[in-house]
């Protein structure tokens, strides 16, 4: 009896030891300092992409996908209207610069605020619905935003898109950064994305993040524990909208134009694909999904005009055989 218990204890010890050996120090460390690891990764990213403008797109869409993942992966609600927040962030930042000559450091928070306001309203209306109805309500409301912006030609440029979001240089503490230089622009935007990533990680680690996952896993039980289901969901939707809005505002500064396509429902669909591709409900998965999606699209486009066929086929393959997504599958495999 005692020898058996001893043997069991030894087994446990041995497996514990094995796990330590198999899971190298670096991976463990990355798991503990995910924000720092992500930033280090993003610092070398522009050397791995074919050109810098694509790397900046990856930063921006990565942030967008991460923001979207808060409501999709962590709260378990499929929103089909996130283009509204990305687009409003872009227009909210672009219009003050292009039409009223505001400096970028005023316009950027303005864009985030406009997206946040829209998220607060749309979220307040949409969280009453579940599942497919939630998706439909968010889609319908985001289409309203699309048509308002489309028709308001004097302010938004309508069909032609907004032009003239010229941020040629930014001054920080006497230091002038030339934003026309692609590498400078990349690192300037990376600083903002890094702060956002840190904030996002803090939100996930907070009690609020825990409650969000509890609601996703068992709504009734969370309600029985005394948590405010609607309030939590609404707040998650709002935060998700704010992150998407920040991504949109950065997009406007990056391209110096805001196409009406940013508000198109295709832009809502693309972020679902990115999150699924990378791994919903993981911290860095959606970012990786955005990276893989944009990189693949870019490389395949150079080879053939039928790029959609190949990206689509890959997407179906991944969904069928790696439903956890790329990053999700990798984490799952490493844990075993």
């Amino acid at each position, binding site marked *: 009896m005692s020898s058996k218990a001893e043997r069991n204890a030894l087994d446990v010890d041995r497996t514990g030891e094995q796990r330590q050996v198999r899971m190298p120090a670096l991976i*463990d460390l990355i798991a503990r300092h995910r924000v720092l690891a992500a930033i280090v990764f993003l610092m070398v990213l522009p050397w791995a992409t*074919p050109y810098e403008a694509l790397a900046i797109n990856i930063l921006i869409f990565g942030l967008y996908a991460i923001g979207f993942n808060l409501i999709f992966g962590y709260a378990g609600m499929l929103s089909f209207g996130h283009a509204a927040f990305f687009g409003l962030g872009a227009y909210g930042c672009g219009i003050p610069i292009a039409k009223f000559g505001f400096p970028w450091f005023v316009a950027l928070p303005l864009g985030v605020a406009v997206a946040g306001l829209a998220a607060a309203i749309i979220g307040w209306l949409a969280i009453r619905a579940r599942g497919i109805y939630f998706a439909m309500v968010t889609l319908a409301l985001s289409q309203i935003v699309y048509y308002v912006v489309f028709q308001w030609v004097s302010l938004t440029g309508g069909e*032609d898109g907004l032009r003239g979001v010229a941020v040629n240089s930014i001054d920080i503490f006497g230091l002038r950064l030339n934003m026309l230089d692609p590498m400078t622009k990349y690192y300037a935007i990376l600083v903002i994305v890094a702060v956002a990533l840190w904030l996002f990680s803090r939100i996930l680690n907070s009690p609020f993040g825990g409650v969000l996952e509890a609601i996703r896993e068992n709504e009734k039980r969370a309600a029985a524990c005394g948590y405010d289901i609607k309030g939590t969901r609404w707040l998650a939707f709002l935060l998700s909208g704010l992150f998407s809005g920040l991504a949109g505002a950065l997009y406007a500064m990056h*391209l110096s*134009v805001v*196409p009406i396509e940013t508000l198109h429902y295709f832009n809502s669909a693309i972020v679902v694909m990115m999150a699924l591709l990378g791994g919903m409900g993981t911290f860095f998965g959606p970012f990786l999904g955005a990276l893989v999606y944009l990189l693949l699209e870019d490389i395949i486009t150079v080879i053939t*005009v039928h790029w959609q066929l190949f990206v689509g086929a890959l997407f179906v393959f991944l969904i069928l055989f790696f439903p956890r997504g790329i990053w999700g599958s990798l984490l799952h495999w490493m844990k075993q």
Partner: protein
Amino acid sequence: MTTYRFDKKSGRLTRRDFMGAGIGAAAAIAAGPVYLRHARAQDGPIKIGFPAPLSGPYSSEAQDQVRCAQIAVDLFNEAGGLDGRMAELLVRDSKLDPGEAATRTLELIESDGVHFLCGGLSASVQLSINQVASQRGVIYNSISQSDSINEASDFTKYTFHEAMNPTMTAGSVGRYVFPNHGKRVAFLTADYAYGHEMVRGFKRAGEEFDIEVVAEVSHPLGQADFSTFFPRIQAAGPDVLICSNFGRDQLNTIKQANDFGIKQQMQIAYPVLLFTQRVAGGAQAFEGIIGGTNYYWRLEEDHESAKRLNDAYRERHDGGVPSDYGAYGYAGIYGLLEGAKQAGSTDADGVIAAMETMRYDAYKGEQNFRKCDHQAVQSVLVIQSKPEAEIEGEYDLFNVVHTDNGGEEMLRSCEELGHET
């Protein structure tokens, strides 16, 4: 608060190590030889970036633009280039998306170091390329219709517009159609910038003839079924129906107009009657339809330059002929390279000065860029689709019924566009 699940003494890397490494890496990146700047070289090949919607609904027009653009580059190189400097065309798929086009333009300028840009089908795409290019001091010659690009708010000294604009296109068609076919006019318009700008051009031209607008109907882009629109138009009893739409919408309106017997009741006219859509739709459906165009291959009977383009095209593409939008691709590149040749370099300011003053015959007779908005002043053709019996060969599709020999009076004035005079 980050929790440490394991003992720090276990020999694992600590956060401090990691931070140190991270900061070290950051410093290395910041201080290192940074990266190779691809400055635009004043020697070596002349690179021309060409974003075009190779995938998407305008792909057939875009692919023909690329074919013709390549011909312009080939002919320039065969003639010895710019004192031995050869030209090179860098094609990118814009996917008909202004965001993608802006990203690709950044790639072309920043990574490939292009000297000039051309291309960009659709109004929003060309405006977005124009914004990115002019911010970085790269000359862009646009080859797609737009009125906005001429206006002071979008124009910069780096902006050139080789394509016709809606004001001149609709103006020429209107000035031909209204006196010849009647003054009671109905509009069927695709509900986007192209359609609205064209209608504005027709109404402007119509003032001279006191036209009466009896019906105005808008349809969404990509409409398949027009059956609800035609009875309203028929009830209004117009002499002329003007359909301001593009691409496949054009073909669908014509086919269904035939079914409704519209053609027997009124004259149908398009601001731009596309070669590619006429090929797809057949002679019978298009018989008698009138429209404007920048180019028709039979111009070669009067213009040596048109023959040069057609011959090069025939030789490379199984005896085919360039389409109207395809020919823009040729003319756009031709204008840029001619400018470089006259300036004797690829330096932007020099080329701009040369392009502002040069008179050039790219593909259909003499043209020039108006100084205030860099709009190409050019002839506009009014064409009518031939009946089947009169056709003399595979590509014989149209009769040129009228040619508006270009003059600045066809354009909006510089003051009207907001330019300083």
